[in-house]
């Protein structure tokens, strides 16, 4: 059953559709950055709605860090086979060959080499002048001030002091050659909105969001899933089977699981509402140092 007219979620849906149509109409060559996570899957769903009965008039692009959960790749391939949408997959093969991994090289360096740099390189190579991302303002402090149309320099940098004022629902999509805009149609959604929407719209998401028995080890207070044989265990570590789920998805060595019994959407939402820790805590990348997300954004990470 789709969201009902006159509700908060319908307003958010309409706003996101409006934003996507503005981008399709004003930009020469937009792309939707698809991370396979729940937010970008909601974004994909909204793109289907925005242009129906046409197909979304832009391709989707996935930056494959080579360390993502296996279930994510499977989900992505099945989804795009069903929809018949254009998908570009970007992989830093040199980095993979050189064996860059989150265990030996640290999350900062690894994320930069396997995600941020390939993303920037691909945006430049394809000449995309607008890229949709699933960022939300409620996620993190530096994002609370993010624009819906976030201006990026030709080197894909983000200068928080040099962002355009954004008034009413009028978005300024003009860029010079080489410059681009990151577009966040979900800016005004909260995590709860996303889950409620997934539930109401019956949107298929990666099974990792649902609790199941999975092999995990505890590292520095975070539960890490042993997703494949590349996971190097410390001498004292033995994988244990625990009923866990993930609140966000990314590279498995950097994504903490939470112990949970929630194996239905309703249970997930209920659990989430009782939760006392915020979503990004499961991301190792955020608390490397204070203000770390802001630094990554300046460098071009989403």
């Amino acid at each position: 059953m789709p969201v009902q007219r006159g509700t908060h979620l319908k307003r958010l849906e309409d706003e996101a559709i409006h934003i996507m149509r503005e981008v399709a109409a004003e930009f020469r060559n937009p792309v939707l950055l698809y991370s396979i996570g729940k937010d970008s899957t909601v974004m994909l769903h909204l793109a289907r709605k925005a242009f129906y009965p046409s197909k979304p008039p832009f391709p989707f692009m996935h930056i494959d860090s080579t360390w993502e959960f296996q279930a994510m790749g499977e989900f992505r391939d099945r989804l795009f086979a069903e929809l018949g949408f254009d998908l570009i997959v970007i992989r830093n093969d040199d980095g993979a060959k050189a064996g860059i991994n989150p265990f030996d090289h640290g999350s900062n360096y690894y994320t930069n080499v396997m995600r941020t740099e390939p993303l920037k390189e691909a945006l430049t190579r394809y000449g995309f002048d607008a890229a949709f991302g699933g960022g939300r303002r409620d996620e993190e402090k530096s994002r609370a001030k993010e624009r819906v149309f976030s201006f990026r320099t030709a080197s894909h940098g983000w200068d928080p002091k040099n962002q355009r004022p954004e008034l009413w629902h009028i978005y300024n999509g003009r860029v010079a050659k080489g410059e681009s805009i990151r577009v966040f149609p979900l800016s005004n959604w909260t995590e709860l909105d996303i889950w409620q929407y997934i539930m109401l719209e019956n949107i298929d998401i990666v099974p990792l969001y649902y609790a199941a028995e999975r092999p995990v080890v505890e590292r520095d207070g975070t539960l890490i899933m042993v997703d494949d044989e590349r996971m190097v265990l410390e001498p004292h570590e033995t994988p244990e089977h625990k009923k866990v789920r993930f609140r966000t998805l990314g590279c498995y060595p950097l994504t903490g699981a939470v112990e949970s019994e929630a194996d239905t959407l309703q249970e997930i939402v209920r659990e989430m509402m009782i939760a006392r820790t915020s979503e990004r805590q499961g991301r190792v990348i955020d608390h490397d140092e204070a203000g770390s997300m802001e630094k990554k954004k300046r460098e071009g990470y989403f």
Partner: protein
Amino acid sequence: MSAAEDFSAEAFGDYLESQQNKSFLRFITCGSVDDGKSTLIGRLLFETKLIFEDQLAAIARDSKKHGTTGDDIDLALLVDGLEAEREQGITIDVAYRFFTTEKRKFIVADTPGHEQYTRNMATGASTADLAVLLIDARNGIQVQTKRHAFLVSLLGIRHVVLAVNKIDLVGFDQARFDAIKADFETFAAAFEFETLQAIPISARYGDNVVAASQNTPWYDGPTLLAHLEGIEVESDLAARPLRFPVQWVNRPNLDFRGFSGTVASGSVRPGDAVVVAGSGREAVVSRVCTFDGDMAEAGPSEAVTILLDREIDVSRGDVLVPPDHRPDVTDQLAAHVVWMAEDAMLSGRPYLLKIGTRTVTATITDIKHRIDVNTFEHLAAKSLGLNEVAFCNISLSEDVAFDPYEANRETGAFILIDRLTNATVGAGMVWFALRRATNIHWQALDINKQTRAAIKGQKPVVLWFTGLSGSGKSTIANLVEKRLSAQGRHTYLLDGDNVRHGLNRDLGFTDADRVENIRRVSETAKLFVDAGMIVLVSFISPFRSERRMARDLVESDEFFEVFVDTPIEVCRERDPKGLYQKADRGELKNFTGVDSPYEPPEAADLRIDTTDGPAEDHAETVVAMLKARGVID
């Protein structure tokens, strides 16, 4: 949210149901650094339990480093996001915060209060339905409070809360509160806010924020949160006439041609008659289509795709409206402008203006007066600096449809964009159409450009030759016209010298006259294009902005700029009319290249170096370009 913890799995379904039906309020908080604005928002987030444990731990850590509250947790740190701001202890941008209660979902725009951040306040206010104005009970109404009230009113917010903060620091004194409230009501009467609620609060300790305070027994009004939860701010957009700005033409196949957009106001149903506001073309709505099925009716803020019963010319930027309630359609309007850029706004300089889904070129023709945001005084002004507000006359390159901002915030608002940097430099609110063009709706002519061009079997375009006097523009343009004519093309050549003998005989050579000279020629070229002709224009046209204006008058694929690039030394040597000699002797004033500048094109469609080869070859190059660009076969 707290209730969720008590819910059994069974009852939870009902709870979610109620969650979805919550109403929604967007509000803005205004106040300066010391008024405790960030602390208030932090308090609201804290009290509605939206602060997670890890965030609290992070604030506790940060409070020791940057905090201003001693050993207490500094709630302001929750909302002051960027590193620079945390270090300076001030909020310098608009932050959006979210919280929810049992009754409502809220989006708060947290904006800085200093005068130099007027632009941020305008940004936050543009999407808000209510404003919370914070003042420090110790200081009472300040100059900045008046500024905030003015801006809030200017941006069309009709509901105001006067939060008299730090009431604890004046000993919860009722007389103090009453005096401040009376002061504010007196000066704000002119703004005619629909509701105005004064509340004594302490953001730091929570008095009257969520729970009624024991310390203010004399106050019997609502707490801040209760007021925010209860207030009705329903806009009257649904009751207004339909405005449907077309965003995107949806054409998946030959059988489906829909117009995608968001309903700005009013409603639309299958069977409704609509017209295109600019052209006056009429049709009947056949379907209101969405991914989730067709709708019987769509209202304000709903994103849909409209199908019409017949093929009429509709594209992005057009507005579908009812035939009997049309908006103003004009190219001259009066508006309030808030300037948002370091570089001053100048009368006469062209900017881009985006209103709804339409972008046109706009020139501020007259700054009627600047408004002092602190005293509301009207002052004379030639230009407008950052964070200044003015009432201006604006001239547009083509007609746009709009409503006065007061009547419709969706169709009466626009932004101004700098043409070189692409930055958003201004925000405007339309007051009225200058020429009152309401009743002279554009006649929808049955014979149009396409028809006329089709009879001639050609694509009408403008070939704009620019270059110094003596560069060889006219020679080449003549040869090009001959070649086109020989191929059976219908052409017309507008030559600078010739036009100055007739149409423009009243114009001299000052910068202002040169601009007018080009404007008339551009308009004439446009008429010829409309008549289906290939127009060759041979004019020095020294200024980029005017050539840009000429380009903007026609469709983007109908204009070709040919830069006849001859070095000034060569032109001087040729000097076919002896003009350079005269200019050198001081007999000719404002001569381009001598004592008046020539701005060469930055991205001409074609650049011709006349020092290389005969004029015939250059004419051939122009014809070849027209072939390559698909104008002629």
